[in-house]
């Protein structure tokens, strides 16, 4: 499913990112890689998402969250 449907507090695994090469590599530098475990801290309710990957917190806009497949 898309990250946009993930509930706050849920733990998900990143499958793929549907984005251009450059954006994908930029996300990888932030630790957003296929296979990585993350926890949804806030699903924003029409605001941006906050996810926890290990010890970093990353903000993802809703448009971005839509492009991220998780399970």
């Amino acid at each position: 499913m898309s990250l946009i449907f993930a509930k706050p507090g849920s733990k998900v695994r990143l499958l793929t990112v549907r984005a251009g090469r450059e954006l994908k590599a930029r996300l990888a530098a932030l630790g957003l890689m296929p296979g990585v475990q993350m926890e949804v801290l806030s699903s924003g309710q029409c605001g941006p998402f906050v996810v926890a990957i290990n010890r970093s917190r990353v903000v993802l806009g809703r448009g971005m969250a839509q492009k991220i497949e998780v399970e």
Partner: protein
Amino acid sequence: MTKKTKITVALTGNPNSGKTSIFNGLTGARQHVGNYPGVTVEKKEGVFKHCGTEINVVDLPGTYSLTAFSIEEVVARNFIIEEKPDVVVDIIDASNLERNLYLAVQLMELGVPLVLVFNMSDVANAMGLEFDIKTLSERIGVPIIPTVGHKGRGLEELKETIISVAQSKFKQKIAEIHYGREIDKEIAEIEDLIKNNDDLVEKYNTRWMSTKLLENDKIVLEKVNSDEIISAIKKAANNIETIFGDHPEIIIADHRYGFISGVCQETVKSTAEARHTMSDKIDSVVTNRLLGIPIFLLLMYLVFYLTFTLGESPMGWIEGGFAWLGDFVAGLWPGGSESVLKSLLVDGIIGGVGGVIIFLPNILLLFLAIAILEDSGYMARVAFIMDRLMHKIGLHGKSFIPMLIGFGCSIPAIMATRTLESQRDRLTTMMVIPLMSCGARLPIYALIIPAFFPQAWHAPMLWIIYLIGIILAIVSAKILRSTLFRGESTPFVMELPPYRLPTTRGVLIHMWERGFLYLKKAGTIILGISIIMWAMTSYPKIPDAKLAGLGPEDAQKAEISYSIAGRIGHALEPIIRPIGFDWKIGTALIGSFAAKEVFVAQMGIVHSVGEADEESDSLREKLAMNYSPLIAFCIMLFCLVSAPCMATIAVTKRESGSWKWALFQLAGLTALAYLVTLVVYQTGQFFI
């Protein structure tokens, strides 16, 4: 082995890894800020001496990787590759080790003399992380120094290590990273081709270069001029995509993380699971959907309240000092005598520059507050909170960070738009940044507000002015985004750094830098313009015949009206009358185009030149006698919105790449200022 007496060290690291605290710790106050050639990214340098060796430290911009996505990354990478510093020190936030090691691994690939600093090791230990630094260091072949940057712990050891690495006392055996059999094979093949190409071999590490080529790095690709190599890269990339089903750079990144988690598993012990931290708890309140914006507005109000209340007494002292100085200098001439020099010193310089320096305490307090908000990590939250609103206008939260920097000064703010990926977002943000009221405009408000409004209204008034700026910026951005800069909004990704207690030293250094710039500006640009404005307000002198029969007050009026400034002001009057301004304000507005503070200086000059009595009232008293609170408010409004200063226009031109946008900004904001002030003044008159 030759012993070097001069060493260059490059400091690199992820944003928010505490790089600045290490830099401050190493170099103390011996810093200087410049620019990298060709680009406007700030280049911070500092020097320290250790055991007879002079060490020059260059603080590179914070980056997450060595790929060339943003200008900061390009600058950092180019410095390391082209300038070949003797040692590269990578500052790592030990509490977020794996992500931070990603950059370290890329530096290892590059094969530069490397030292890793595990900064904030105290935070990491408190989180229940224990590092076997010796084993980790052996596994990767790079020395590791644990530090606590803001307490200065570990810095001596770091200095020792930097020198011994630079003197190559121990030969570095940096571990090689492997990306799996298939990719390693492709890299080796490309490397063979590169090795035959003499131009490339000389300058770059060939394995690193091959890896970058496979990663589709645009800047490295530009350096390759051989079709043979280019087609080999394409073939290799296609091979990898068919095998793995993803682009080579993703597979390579995956192997880097694999390498990192491999070494960490052996050497890092975690006694506690990664739990929700204190930062998360603070965030659940501060970035709350309902509370977020009110908290932001409240904090802003607090900043202005403190700027006024704490600034009042020191301002009084400085004002008293200048008043005394003015009387003292005037007293050097016999009473009632006319002297050009006396007028220049008392009216032009003390009245002009002095009037600007009076507001130094406010400026220091404002920058102190901004530094605290920035260092604590709150600014990133503001971007997050504002994202929902910004999204509605077609930008995203990240655009709000350059806008916040605009509270300090529009110039660094416009430069900061470089972090925005889309050109449309960048231009939109750049155009509206001057609406965020900058530090140079603060003296105008600080002069006017206490002159016209009761004590209880001081802070709210200032807050309202800043809010009007933000609202106008957002509205203008919306208009621009739906007309000139139409298009889809770009994806928003940003790291949320953990909250940190700002250090006294770090905050004071920030504040001092800005305060010093303000004084320097007062002593150079504003001094120069004040002298010009004084001359324009004093000359040409009116013939005595025309003064015959006039009282002292009327004579002063006639004198100023006869001067160049007076004539220009009078010529402007028909245009500015409808917004409530007289010709005196008109002259000050022209001066403020050079630098906003000049408005205050010129108001001082125009109200003191040719004054009859020596015992003068303060400028605020004079203003209160001459104008109504409505006009006062309109002055602030006009200064807030109107034409950005010359320096801002120059930066907009450079950053947008054309005069077109700079002039558009100038004309657009001036028109907007006129319109808004006209509406407020004309409606206001009905009520007052």
